[in-house]
């Protein structure tokens, strides 16, 4: 089964879970479209994939209109993990972006509240370590 959200097609991967993979340049448009489906931002998962040299970001929304989870997937180069922010579209995503920055080292352009030490301890911040990266040594 599929759900059309704007010009994006979300495919069912399991009951009540629909996924659409989008390009980095389409991220903000996709988030804007999902928000129109009476949804709220639920979680942002950052996954380190060193074998592919990438970090995958999964934006999980719950749509009250469709009663399903709509998941937007984007990937970014792990050596240049810069992604546009979405907190102007969904202020609720603030914590998710702060966490992904502090623990995984993904920078969200346009989010001026990013800071190290949001969760990570001082010693990790001083050494420039992002604990959730697979090569953090932690």
């Amino acid at each position, binding site marked *: 089964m599929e759900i059309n959200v704007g010009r994006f097609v979300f495919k069912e991967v399991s009951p009540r879970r629909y996924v659409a993979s989008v390009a980095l340049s389409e991220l903000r448009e996709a988030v804007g479209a999902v928000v129109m489906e009476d949804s709220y931002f639920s979680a942002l998962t950052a996954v380190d994939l060193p074998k592919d040299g990438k970090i995958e970001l999964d934006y999980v929304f719950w749509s009250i209109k469709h009663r399903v989870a709509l998941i937007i997937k984007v990937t970014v180069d792990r050596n240049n993990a810069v992604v546009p922010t979405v907190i102007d579209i969904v202020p609720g995503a603030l914590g998710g972006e702060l966490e992904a920055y502090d623990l995984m080292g993904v920078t969200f352009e346009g989010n001026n509240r990013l800071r190290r030490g949001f*969760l990570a*301890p*001082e010693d*990790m911040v001083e050494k420039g370590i992002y*604990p959730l990266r697979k090569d953090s040594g932690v």
Partner: protein
Amino acid sequence: MGLERVKAIKYSPWVMHFNAGACNGCDIEVLAALTPFFDPERLGVKLAPNPRHADIIIVTGALNKKAAERLKRLYDQTPSPKFVIACGACAISGGVFSGSYPVFSRADSVVPVDVYVPGCPPRPEAVIYGIKKLLDKVG
């Protein structure tokens, strides 16, 4: 002079609770221990309104590094004679979080500990027993 002050604690120990990165399990049992159902006031135990009034600090949690800094400061602010109870598996050895990157794992690596109350979490009766043990040790 020291003995006189220690005797005063024995009959009315005021307790301060500090959560150093705990899951709240120990915290709600410490809280429960301070309610009339378990009646800590029979030992003269009361919650201290701030560290300057505390005789005993009960520490819970795996000693998150940021919280540990504050614990140290709190400990230094508390006037002597002062005692520390490490409450719960996390405060004793880190519990399931032992070795995790943002925690020190052991309360006694941050402040001197007088009594260890094991459990995950310890029952309110065990917490009160721990306080009693401390009072016996001190007296």
